[in-house]
């Protein structure tokens, strides 16, 4: 984690500080958390539910800021992240650290007030896991970084579930497992396309350490686990007819696209072959969104 050279001087705007919170990641976390809250049994209070989801959003933002604070050296090297507020010189690293710590504290206070100790403890664990275990340790040391680190991104539905009910359940665990097993094929499809950048930044992503062929196989194997796992809500009663359609059709298409990547030479420098990984990456986002949207529709339309 070296000091980063300033490449641009411009006075920071509120938008720069907002960018430190990784708003796109935040939106997915808020969505999966919201679905977890809606699907949890019982009649939740609208204000307390809003506060719990807001706490999850702020915690995700805090985690994003702490990640950008620690990873500014890597961000300065990779094209995709070079324009972020720290490497471009618009926001100082120390400010980002303070922003992250302040938001983390605010999110925990809010969650404790609105939902009690279990949800607050799970939220604290998630921030710690993402900022310390994933960002400071796993990301720079092992190609399993995004597999283990994916737990942080998978927990929000369970946190929201705990916020509403004060407890956890099998269904909450299933939602976590779906996101957990979705993360490797999602990120490895992207990393196949950015292999050289990760190598230049010294990040031991799977395509860098084990090659593109091994990565394509791992993507397929994780998809083989994910597709049937995603149908589990049908057996517990969490998912209904719309979810059945989304998980079966979506899972089949995910497997087909992962199979196409497996049979390709994606990640070996051929742009037409890389396109298959790009399509899989884009579809993976749609797939997760579709699964959770289907749960929302099933629960919204339930009598």
């Amino acid at each position: 984690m070296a000091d980063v050279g300033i490449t641009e001087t411009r006075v920071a705007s509120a938008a720069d500080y907002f960018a430190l919170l990784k708003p796109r990641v935040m939106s997915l976390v808020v969505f999966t958390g919201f679905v977890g809250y809606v699907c949890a049994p019982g009649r939740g209070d609208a204000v307390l539910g809003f506060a719990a989801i807001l706490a999850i959003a702020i915690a995700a933002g805090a985690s994003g800021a702490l990640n950008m604070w620690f990873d500014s050296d890597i961000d300065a090297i990779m094209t995709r992240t070079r324009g972020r507020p720290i490497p471009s010189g618009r926001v100082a690293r120390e400010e980002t650290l303070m922003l992250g710590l302040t938001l983390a504290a605010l999110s925990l206070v809010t969650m404790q007030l609105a939902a009690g100790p279990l949800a607050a403890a799970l939220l604290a664990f998630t921030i710690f896991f993402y900022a310390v275990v994933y960002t400071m340790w796993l990301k720079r040391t092992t190609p399993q970084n995004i597999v283990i680190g994916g737990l942080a991104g998978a927990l929000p539905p369970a946190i929201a579930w705990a916020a509403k009910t004060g407890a956890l359940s099998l269904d909450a665990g299933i939602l976590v497992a779906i996101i957990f097993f979705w993360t490797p094929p999602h990120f490895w499809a992207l990393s196949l396309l950015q292999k050289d950048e990760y190598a230049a930044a010294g990040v031991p992503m799977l395509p860098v350490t084990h090659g593109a062929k091994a990565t394509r196989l791992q993507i397929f194997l994780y998809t083989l686990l994910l597709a049937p796992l995603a149908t589990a809500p049908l057996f517990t009663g969490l998912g209904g007819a719309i979810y059945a359609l989304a998980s079966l059709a979506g899972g089949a298409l995910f497997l087909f696209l992962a199979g196409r990547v497996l049979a390709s030479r994606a990640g070996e420098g051929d742009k037409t072959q890389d396109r298959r990984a790009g399509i899989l990456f884009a579809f993976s986002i749609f797939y997760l969104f579709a699964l959770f949207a289907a749960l929302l529709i099933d629960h919204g339309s339930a009598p």
Partner: protein
Amino acid sequence: MNEPIILTPEEARARKRRNFWLALAIGLFVLLVFAITIAKMKAGGG
């Protein structure tokens, strides 16, 4: 004695804008805590 920091007009405007957003965020947080308290009192919880 330290020299006072003199901001350029652009820096002063940027600081004013940031302060506005900070004040708004703090105000909204206070409102949120108030709303949570009322909701918990209605629910009969602590």
